[in-house]
């Protein structure tokens, strides 16, 4: 399994039950991205990894909270730690499929990722700096589930400057925006806490977007696209 497997084009081996669950998720109907914020469920996600290298580092945990009809549903949140392999024994574990790390805390990756998909449903995703979260999650899904995730993502790192052009030069990191809007965060640097902070920022974005008659995920995506273009040329 994992990256070495996919490197050579091997599909990871899933149990019958796991295949069934994956198929069930794939069969879910897509959601309407043009639905108003007040009638939608978005999932705001944040990940923790072993490092910042998109190619080499691995996914450690996923934290996610759902924004349902514009409100963060505390009970509708998700957190999972993926079972880690000791780096030195990577190859060994790849061959055997069962490592000593199986005793370590954390869910087996395939199980963890299936649980994430089932939690996610087909709700569109939101993150701050999507590239990082998307790459990590997509790679893990491909490695452990053989799934090529094609899912809508919205990047608040572009949406926020798009809504507030004058602030765009000053505020860059998630912390900058959170600080600017006085969102008090009681804990950070845990995937769930950061997802919650990002979700609160999304609520602020919703409220500001409404003033500009932007009322759906699809319209926010348009705003993001425009802002990406602006950032690229400026």
């Amino acid at each position, binding site marked *: 399994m994992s990256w070495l497997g996919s490197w050579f084009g091997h599909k990871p081996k899933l149990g019958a039950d796991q295949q069934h669950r994956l198929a069930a998720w794939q069969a879910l109907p897509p959601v309407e991205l043009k639905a108003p914020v007040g009638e939608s469920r978005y999932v705001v996600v944040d990940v923790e990894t072993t490092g910042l290298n998109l190619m080499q580092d691995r996914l450690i945990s996923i934290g996610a909270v759902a924004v349902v009809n514009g409100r963060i549903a505390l009970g509708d949140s998700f957190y999972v730690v993926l079972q880690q392999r000791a780096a030195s024994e990577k190859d060994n574990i790849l061959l055997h499929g069962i490592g000593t790390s199986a005793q370590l805390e954390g869910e087996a990756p395939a199980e963890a990722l299936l649980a994430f998909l089932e939690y996610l449903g087909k709700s569109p995703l939101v993150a701050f700096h999507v590239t990082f979260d998307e790459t990590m999650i997509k790679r893990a899904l491909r490695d452990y589930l053989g799934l090529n995730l094609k899912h809508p993502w919205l990047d608040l790192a572009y949406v926020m400057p798009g809504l507030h052009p004058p602030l765009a030069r000053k505020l860059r990191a998630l912390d900058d925006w959170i600080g600017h809007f006085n969102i008090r965060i*009681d804990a950070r640097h845990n995937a769930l806490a950061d997802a919650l902070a990002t979700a609160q920022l999304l609520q602020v974005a919703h409220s500001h977007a409404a003033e500009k008659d932007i009322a759906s995920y699809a319209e926010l995506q348009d705003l993001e696209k425009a802002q990406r273009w602006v950032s690229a040329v400026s």
Partner: protein
Amino acid sequence: MSAIHPSEFAFITKHAPFDRMELAHVMWMLERMSLGYYTEGEVIVSPERGAVDRFLVIKQGVVHGEQNVAKASDADTWLELMEGECFPLGALLANRPVASVYRAGTDIFCYELPAADFRELIGLSAAFRDFCTRRIANLLEHSKQIIQAQYSQSSVEQQSLASPLSAIVRRAPVTCAPETSIRRALEIMRDQRIGSMVAVDEDGRPLGIMTLHDVLDRIAIPQIDLDQPVLEVMSMQLNTLPPQALAHEAALMMAKHGFRHVLVVENGKLAGLVSEKDLFALQRVGLRQIGTAIRSADTPQVLQQGAADIRRMAHSMMAQGVAPEQLTQFISAFNDLLTARVVELECKASGLIGTPLCEGMCWMALGSEGRFEQTLNTDQDNAIIFTVPEGMDADQVRAKLLPVARRINETLALCGFPLCKGEIMASNPKWCLSLEEWKRTFSNWISGGSPESLLNASIFFDFRALYGAQHLADDLRGWLAHVASDNSRFLHMMAENALHNRPPLGVVRDFVLGKENKLDLKLNGITPFVDAARIFGLAAGVTQTNTIQRLRLCADKMNIHISEIDAWVDALLFIQVLRLRHHDEESAQGAGDDALDNLIDPEKLNELDRRILKEAFRQARKLQARLALEYHL
């Protein structure tokens, strides 16, 4: 893998009532909650939206409750809610629309629980149900427990010098045989960390005592051989008392003979040891002793001691969490006793006692003393009513009484009641008047209505007799009740005046503050209640001066529901608790009683007290709204 972040849990359980709920119930609630965001000025709940559909807890920001203009008489007045506070409880419980508009005062985040889940939670959690239905009473109870917990360390054990020694002896005495070596005895004392050693015979009868104090004189300096029997260096002159003897007998024995230990002996056998240290904790004088001491005091020095005892006792009662109503009554009762004794002594000293002049004189307490609401830093407010004997005129009587009154005021000042800066004292010729003169003065105030008259009325109309010819005060009171209740113009002006002093709304950071960011508990907190109660009392012809009694007694005549009165009384008492506690803390930091102030920094209050205080101010505003309604202001 569904997850509530620990920080959410930590936040919510920091606040009442969630801090007292079972964890499982808090989790149950959190799982059903959502987090909403509202921008500044956005309406969160309003009467127009029908029955309230959710219960809200503020996570961050400020929410304003605005009185519905169309229903200005509605009980819900202005309020401000902060982080951790819940709303709108009343409307949710009654399943009705809110009476006020709740609006985001800043950008806010709120936890929200659907109404159906709210009702289920009320069924699940007794602590939550209790909080929602009893609210203020509950917060107060909660606060009281915290206060008591804070003070429990300093109030050790409530014993008095009247307890028997058997109740004071803490453990079996450490003893040795008379032939034990000095060295061994000292080792035992060191190991057991005790200050004395008693040698006993085989039957447990004490033979001698050695204390650490003796080591220097009896062992070290004479360079005694440490292998000698310990009895050789022991003191054989033993002070013994039976277990039934009282602590003060032991204290007396120690004081008389200069010993630090008393042996408690039962049937000849050593039963225990009481040291001077054991009695330190008991050096509090009981109420009875203070009273007796004051009553029989015959010099200003003894009275000063009595005044100091009253204060010490008040601090100690405060520490025990005695309710403020009882505490202020206690302080007033003892100050009365003290003042009466001062008046009596000075009358005696000036040869006034036994003369018709003295028999026709009544010493009156005014202001807070008149209302039985004294705290530790009350300055003097007093006056004299007298009758004019045959063959004299009022000025002649006054000329005789004023020097005595001056001495009384000065002695009271020595006892810790500062002279009144406004000269509202019996030694002021303006306030040493015959009954007829008082009636004339009061009449002028009532018909005049100048700011000065209104101010005087607010001080003098709380008069009561403290010493002497009580019937004069009763006469004046009866007359005033009749005259004032008939004069609606005067009461209207009093009400208007009282409404100039608005309790803080709770704005910007919680409270509207004067300079120095301090809140004046007396002016902003107590005075609105006192003023309104006075007006209600005068209007209803109530002859009591105490604010709480005035409120309770006028309920029927004013057609105010008793639950509303209770809420006002609770609020007033809470502010009084904070005030007394503030005084207590200042004293503990070494402030003299004359340096005590009523200014607190709301930032330093704990979150619970801040909330209750805000609720108390809300009650003060409700009371004022009632006053305004009554007098069409």
